[in-house]
Every structure is written in C-alpha cells, then in structure tokens.
C-alpha cells in the first residue's frame, strides 16, 4: 500500500558511553523516568503524528527491545496495514552484513522503503526524550520542497560540541553544517531527525556499500550539503534531550523531578507518551516510608526515605534506608540501613544492608562494580 511518509528508527548503536546500563540492553530500551523506556518517546510521537509504517533497525542486544515493543500494540502501532517491522542484520550470500554505521543500516534495508513506494522517509533515533509532531515537520518539508529537512534545536554553548551544528537563514534554508565543532558558529544543534525525499536518499546512499562505515551525521549530511541539494532546517522549540551519556541520562531524570509539568506527561491532551503496561499493582508506602520531591512507579514498596529521587517500578526500599538525588532503575532492592546519594542504580541490582555511597559526581552502581564504588558501613 502506497504511503507518502514512512519512518525508520535507528536503534543499532551500542550506546557505549552508557557503559553498565547498556551492558545487556539496547540503548532505546534503557529505563527513564521511573516507568518509561527511551523508545516510548519516539514511538508515541509516531503514533500521534499518524505515521503507521515504522521500520526499526536493530543490531545490538535486540532481544529485550523486541520483546518490549512486541507488535507495537501499546503504542497503537499494530494496525492491519501498518505497524512496526524489526529490521535486523541478515546474512547475504553467506556474508553477514553487520551494519557499518547508521546510514549503512538504512542502505541495507532500502527495500523496506521501496515496498511502500514512500515518497519521503523520516529517519529517527530511538533514544531521545521529547515530544514532537512529525507531521508539522513534514508540512515544513513540503512547504519548502526540501530534498532533506533536518530538525534542529537550540542548545547551550557547552553542549554544542557534542552535536552536529546547523546554520540556517531566515527561510530556514541550511547554509552551513559542522559535525561536533570545537568552536561552534551557531547554537542550532541537529536533533538527528532527518526527513528525506526518497529519491534523494537513494542517490546519497548509492555506492556506500564499499565504504568502511557511513553515518548520517558524519558522512551523508555533509555530502548532501556539498552536492547542493535543497537542505532545510525545521527549528524545534520544546524540551529535547539526547541521553547518550550517564550525565545526560541522570540530568534528564532530575529535570523530570524538578518540573511538575515535565513534558506534560500526566495530561490527557496533545501527544501522550505511551508505555507498555507491566500489570503491576500500585505502589505502597509503609509505616516508615517518607517520600519527598520524588517520583515513584507502580509495584514499588517504600519503607525508607526517598528524597529528590526517581524510583523505577517494582523497587523495594527497606526501613532506615536513605536515598537522595538518585535514580533507581526498575526492580532494584535496597536493603535496610543503606545510604545513597548521587547515584544511578542499575536495573535489578540488590543493594546489601548497611551499604553506603555518597557520591560527588554521578556514579552508576551495578552488580559488577557494587563493592568497588561503595562500601559496607560496619
């Protein structure tokens, strides 16, 4: 069935900068905000933008992510003539095609695009926290008859070095592009959201099979810019975070704690962020529980003190434990008399009695490094 616009989500990246947290899971499956996974945001945006054909390009530890997404029903993406397709690496003539960079992944699955005769292809990342109506970007794209539209958002100067930076004129036409510049000329960062005319994308990808590694940010965008395609920017103004690092993941969690109306997650109008239901009972606060300035997900049992922290689902915090400025990912067990500050506790970690870790800089506690980063108070 012919579509004017389809989406492809790149979830292949290992997220090596998130080390322990992505040890066993793809980055988009990482938990955020007590009950969400990073991929929830992109999938929910797609649903609310009425884009029903979604290809998910996965490579690294795809099982948990695939299991989580299932048929996409939780995001209403299980329609009869649409839905989510998992595009995993496959063997071609006995030769395993491990993806070599983000653009290569799309190249390998270009048949998916062709199958729907889509005129435009939206390329998304699966690990950003934001709410965005892609239809508005699409309108912008059509309005300017762009060959390629790149969503951009203004960032702080300090952050600018992490991103591809875009210069654009009053009509939003792109007049300059730099990937991770040392001395940024603008504060408009590329959000890694690209909307291509299918023909243009096909031309740009042509022949990249021979290359060692091809990325959109590093290779394709500069190439398009230099080959004089019509590139436009779609300036986005809402909250947006690429949580590619421990610090940014921690900070985004703290943003959610500090802003009562963070992304309007609790409102039933506009884009709503769907998440797969875990069928958990509501959380319980026992006699000794004290919770302030925090968010708590379902299935948790709290008998300790939680200050300014995010507590994932099915987490237990026992008596006389004190958690402050921390992120407990789901299914953590905190025994009695534990003191934690400034930490991220990885999913499923059991923190033993009398453990303490008052960190100055954010530390990830995992089963593997538990006794290295903290200690038992005798």
């Amino acid at each position, binding site marked *: 069935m012919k579509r004017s616009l389809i989406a492809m989500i790149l979830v292949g990246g290992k997220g090596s900068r998130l080390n322990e947290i992505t040890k066993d899971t793809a980055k988009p499956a990482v938990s955020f905000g007590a009950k969400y996974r990073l991929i929830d945001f992109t999938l929910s945006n797609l649903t609310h933008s009425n884009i029903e054909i979604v290809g998910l390009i996965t490579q690294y530890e795809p099982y948990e992510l695939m299991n989580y997404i299932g048929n996409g029903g939780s995001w209403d993406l299980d329609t009869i003539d649409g839905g989510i397709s998992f595009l995993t690496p496959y063997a071609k003539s006995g030769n395993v095609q491990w993806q070599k960079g983000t653009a290569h992944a799309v190249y390998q699955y270009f048949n998916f695009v062709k199958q729907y005769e889509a005129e435009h292809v939206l390329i998304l990342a699966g690990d950003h926290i934001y709410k965005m109506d892609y239809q508005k970007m699409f309108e912008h794209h059509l309005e300017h008859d762009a060959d390629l539209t790149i969503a951009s958002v203004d960032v702080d100067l300090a952050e600018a070095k992490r991103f591809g930076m875009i210069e654009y004129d009053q009509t939003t036409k792109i007049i300059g592009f730099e990937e991770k510049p040392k001395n940024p000329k603008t504060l408009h960062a590329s959000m890694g959201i690209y909307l291509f005319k299918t023909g243009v994308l096909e031309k740009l990808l042509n022949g990249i099979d021979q290359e060692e590694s091809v990325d959109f940010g590093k290779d394709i965008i500069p190439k398009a810019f230099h080959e004089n395609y019509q590139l436009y920017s779609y300036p986005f103004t809402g909250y947006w975070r690429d949580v590619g690092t421990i610090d940014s993941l921690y900070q985004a969690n703290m943003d959610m704690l500090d802003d009562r109306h963070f992304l309007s997650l609790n409102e039933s109008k506009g884009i709503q*962020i769907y998440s797969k239901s875990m069928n958990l009972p509501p959380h319980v*606060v026992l006699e000794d529980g004290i919770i302030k300035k925090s*968010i708590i997900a379902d299935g948790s049992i709290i008998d300790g003190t*939680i200050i300014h922290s995010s507590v994932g689902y099915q987490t237990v915090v026992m008596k006389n434990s004190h958690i402050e400025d921390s992120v407990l990912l789901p299914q953590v067990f905190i025994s009695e008399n534990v003191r934690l500050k400034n930490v991220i506790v990885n999913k499923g970690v059991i923190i033993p009695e009398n453990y303490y870790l008052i960190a100055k800089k954010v530390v990830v506690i995992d089963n593997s490094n538990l006794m290295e980063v903290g200690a038992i108070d005798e």
Partner: protein
Amino acid sequence: MNNLFMVVDATIKGSFNKLTRHRMPGAMPFGAKYRLIDFTLSNCKNSGIRNVAIFPYGNYRSLSDHIGSGDRWDLSRRKDGIFILQPKNLNLKSEDSISFQRMYEHIEYFIRSAQDYVIVSPANIVWNIDYNDVLVSHLNREADITEVLSFEGQRLKTFLISKTLLLNYIKNYDDLQYRNLTEVYDYSPSIHKNAYVFESACFLIDSPYELFKANMSLLSMDTRHQLFNPQHPIFSKETMSSPSRYGEEAFVKNSIIASGAVIEGAIFNSIIGRKAIVKKGATVKNSIIMNQCVIEEGAFIEHAILDKETKVMSNAKVMGSPDDLFISEKKQIVVGDEELKILQIAVECEPFVKTGGLADVVGALAQNYSKLGVQSSVMMPLYPRIKAKYQILLEMRSEAIVLYGDIKYKATLYSYLNQNTNYYFIESYDFFDRDEIYGYYDDGDRFAFFSKACLGFIDIFDELPNVIHIHDWHTGLLPLLIKKDEKAKHIKTLMTIHNIDYQGVHPTAILSKVGLNDIVHYHQTINFMELGLNNASTISTVSQTYHDELRYEYYSKNLVEIINRRDRDFYGILNGLSDEIDPLTDLSIKVTYGPKNVFTMKPQNKKFLQQTMNLSVGDEFFMMGMVTRIVEQKGFDILIPALEEFMSQPNVQFVLLGTGEEHYISALRKIEARYPNRMKLNIGYDATNPFYIYAGADAFLMPSRFEPCGTSQMISLKYGTIPIVRQTGGLNDTIEQFDSVSKKGNGFKFYNYDSRDLIFQLQNALNLFMNGDQTVKHQLIRNAMASNFSLEVSAKSYVELYKTMIGSSNR
C-alpha cells in the same frame, strides 16, 4: 485447551447507591487502579479460560469501555474470546444472581460453547483463584454442582456445573421451581452437591461498606500477597499516566498510591487512585480516593469514598465514620461546611392543609431538615381554612403588587415560625380565597400566579436559599422563572415528581401572563410538569423503582423523552412514614399493640373489624384489607377478576375502604352480594376508620398498576398486616418477598400485571396463614413490623442530594 468456560454474572446490582449511578458494580474502581471485574477476568486468563460471557444489566457502557476487545486478558481470540451478552428484555428486574431466564435469552452461546464445564461467578468479587482447582474438586467428588465458599463459609455466588446440566435448567427455566443456581443448590433434592472452600483472601462486594472494607484490607501485606501473586498477575486496562509524584511537603503513611497521582499533602491509611491530586495542607485519612479526584489545599477527609473526579474545595471538611461513610458522586464538588438553606415551595403542607401524601412529605421534610441543622422554610398559598385556624400565630411580613397578565393583584406574605422551620403563606383574595385547594377552572392561573408571587417575595430572605425544592406540577413554572430572574438565577432548583400522571396542562397565554414573553412555544397549551422537568437543575421522584420505571413510556407516557434526556440529573429517593403512625399509640383502634404482644392483641382487632363490618367472626378466616382510591391505577382491573375467583374459597374475607370510579364499585358490589358474610365495601372516605383495617386485617392488598411510592404498605407493615403487592415503584422498594426457608422478607409480591399472578401470591399468603407453620408466620409478621421506612431517612437523603446539587456545575 481448557475444558472450562465462564459466565460472568454482572446482573447483580448490589446496593451501592450513588456509586452505581453511572456504572455497574463490575466496573467499580478498586485498589487504586483496578475495576472489580479485572479480578474475575484475570483469573480466567490465569486459569487458561478462553471463552467468557458477561451478562450485564442496565448501563454497561462503562464496563464495555473498560473491557474493550478483551485483549488485556488474552480474550481477544479467533476462536471463543469475550462476549458481552446484553439483556434482551429490558424489563427483567435485576435479581440477586443471574437467572436461567436471563441465560435463556442467549442460549445459543451455551449451545455453541465447546467446553464441557462452566463456571458462573459474579463480576463484583475480588480474589485470585485458579478455577481448575474447583474443577478438580468437582470431578473428584463426582458432583453435579459445586459451590465455592470463602474460608469463612461465605457464599460467593460462584458455581461450577456441567454444560449439559446447566443447559437442561436453561431450556426448562419456565417450568422449573428454581430461578438460578443458588436455588438449585439449596432446594434441588436429586443432585449431588459439592462445596469447594477457597482458602485465600476473597471479597464479594455489593455495598459501599464491602468496597471500603476490601480496599482497606489491601493495606495489609498478607492480603496483598494473596491477591497480587506475581505468578497470577491481575491485569487491567492499559492507561497512560506518569509515575506518582511527591512534593516537598508530602507525608504518606501506610497507603496505596496509583500512578499519575500528585501528592503534596498528608495521607494516612488510604487508597489513592490514578491521577488524583492531594494538594498542600490537605489531609486524607482512612479513605478511598478514586481516579482524578482533586483535594484542594487545607481540605480534610476522613472515612470517605470519593468517586472519580470529585473535587473537594479548599478547607472543606468531609468526615464520615466507619458506619456512615461519606460517599461523593462522580464529578461532585464538595464545598465547605456552609450552612444549607432550603426553601420548599408547594401548594399543600402538613399540618396546615392536606389532600394527599404530598402534604405529609413536604411537612415532614421541612421539620426533619430543621432537626438536621438545615435552615428550612416552606412557602405555600394561604387558604381560608389555614387562616381560620392559625390566624393568631401568623405574622404579616410584607405586601406586594404582583403583575399577572395586565392586571395588578395584591398579595400579602405571612410567616409562622414553628420548631425552627419558617412557614411562609401568600394570601391573595383573587386566587386563594376559596374553599378547596384544587379543582377550579383557573387552577393554571392560580398556581402560575403563586409561583410568580413566591419569587416576588424572595427578598424576605436575608440570605437566598441554596436550593428551592418544588413538588409536582403546580409550581412547575418556577424553575424557568428563577432562571430568568436576575436576583434568583443562581439558586439551584429541585423538582420532585410525586405522580407523573398529573401534569398540569393549561393555556399557553399563562406564559406571557407571568412575564415569560420571550419563550417560543408552538402549542395551544403548556405542560407545567414538562416545563419544570426541562428547567429544574435536578429532578427526583419518590422511589428508586419508580425512577427506573419512568424510563419507559408505559409509565412516563408523553414525558418519556425528557425523563431519559435528564437521566443524569434524575434521582429516586424513597418517601417514608411519619413516626407518629404506630399501633402502640393508636388510640383509635380496638386494642393498641406492638411487636411484643402482636400475636395476642392483633386477633382482638381482627375480631373487632369482623364485628364492625358485620362479617362472620372467627380466626379461621383469612382477612384481607384495602384502603384505596378506587381507580385504574390501583389495580382494580386485575383485582376484580382475582377476587371473583379467590373469594370462592370459604375461609377468605375481604374489607375495602375507599371511593372512586362507579364501574369498579358496581363490579365489586356484585361480588360483595355473593359473599355477604365475608366481604364488605365501605364506599366513601369517611365510611369507616382506615386503621380498623390496618389493625384488623391479616393481609393488605395493593395490586397497583403503578405506585410512585405508596404509604399504605408502610402503614400496614407497621401494623403487622402483611402486604401483598405488585412489584412496582415504591412497593418494590419497600416489600421484600418472604422466603419461608430463610424466613427473610416482609410480604408477598408479583411482577406481571395479571390476575393469575395476583391469585398465586394470595394463595401463597393464605397457605401460610391457614396451613403453614405458626413460627414461620410469626417471623413474617415480626419482619414486617421491624421494617423501618422513616421520613427522617428520606430527609437525610434529600440533604445529601442538595449538597450534591450545590457542588455540581449544573444549572
């Protein structure tokens, strides 16, 4: 594949009152994020049951919205799945449990189901059970029917039976003496019964108190573990809400908080639903706060069930007690403890003037309101007979010129304060200086003028009333007049229908006479009641069953559409009886008596009645009585054929007091002539003392075609005289069918408006009285006398309704 299929009994209505106005019990929120039916459906999924039928009654929109395709419970299947089998006959009354008749409506479902055994279980039960364990017990014991009991021995209305046997009952439901599986289990002698005791936590929830108890027990870890077993999770509809958020001043102890809740206040021992907001300085104790409630700053809530989206305003106090929970209605706004000021406007009121039950109700409510701390006033016309009797007590308050049509009329306002209730009387030479209350050619003008004059005197109140409560059609123009009145337009209006057959149809010219010139009206006449129902903020009637019946054209006739349109604002509140009516203090009867000496004293009254009526004297006669208007409504079309047959039995007597339509009277006279020693008609209201009949008869007949509320049955209950009634209106709400096995119930009732059904119940009563076990009969009489329908209870219900109205955004 599993060899079980499931019938979810959602026909049970329970007595949830407000909480089931917009939903059925199965859809009741529970445990902060669930609905009751989630437990039964999750048990099906966890037991591997894939074929489920839900039999709902009435309004199941909320239930079917919740269930959706059933995919949450793996019940969205190609083969089997979930079926909501709606009632085909909307007139079937809700019963204690699903009847074979109800199943027969969908017998195809049972025939088509491929599984050999069926579980029948209610939608309103909270537990975590594996139905296969019940099946194993059933098979091991080679039982025909297995009933599931709680570990405390409570019956859970849950049965396992083979499809073949169940189909047998369903097919033959019309010939069976058992209506449902409970009766089969209790009475069928020929089948092999088995009881399966469920050892874990379970709650059959059919009242707000059960709901409260079950919710509170979730606060015990033990119960939580039994209900929320990770191996058998409870599934619920997927909803979106962010995790719960706690503010800086949050203080929560021993509570369950659902996702999306925002907690900034203090919470103790409570269940907080999804997206509920508890603001700073607010306190919630021992309460159930359902989804999306908002508790504003400084509010205090204890022992309450707040239905979805209730808003409690700043500093409001809501205090129930364990025995008297505060229950809000969905979307109610609970205001602070501001004083209620209620003005009733009616054309008759006890003790001043009375033609019928309306006056009793208005008068008794007014007095009870004062006792409940409500500022209570009544406004009514000043009839000469009132003036004659109360002249020295009346205080002249104000005079006004009321423009009605083109003519200026003088009206005078008098007041009389009695036991904290203010009675206001409007005197008008032109309209009210007459001997009778009703029955004049210009009744429409008279009561339209009265309505206008009432509004003209509204200034007499230092503070305007919160609610003006009007009764029946006479004051039907008032809601519209109030809406159009600059001063009064914020006052809420409640209109109570006492009998929808009297609507007040009068010339359209009245509209312009009262100054409503801008109303477009196409008909020659206006209907006072219709105008009232259209414009009152809220409407009510005098019993829950009459409320339900009015949805059907059979009862509400030309007004059926408007009744259904206003369904959301329509309430049923049962009238009660004045406490003064009591055989213990009734000096007009032969001998006074109470529950203690009824069995020795009542026969003396019976003997006296027989003597007074010139009937054969003796306790071997079964004495039936009636005090009634002799009109079609009261059931004479079925009574007369029934009497013709039933009176032929030699030990039956019948006494009637009343007046009415001649053709009924002459038909009755013919029967009377046939049995002069056993039947006596007293035609005319004063023909005899009605209490001779209430005190002397064994049974009291009310085969009414419809009966909005009725008081005679309440009087006869108090006098230990057993009512035999048709199951309609207030009769249905006050009379519970007597069951000689459980010895529960206070009378006899039948549903179909049919002589045969009346005779059947007459025969039932006769058998019990003449041939039955004396202890059983005595228990029935005790039950009857213990029934308590007091106007005090009605007054409390109305006060709650007024509060709901004040808190609602309706106009």
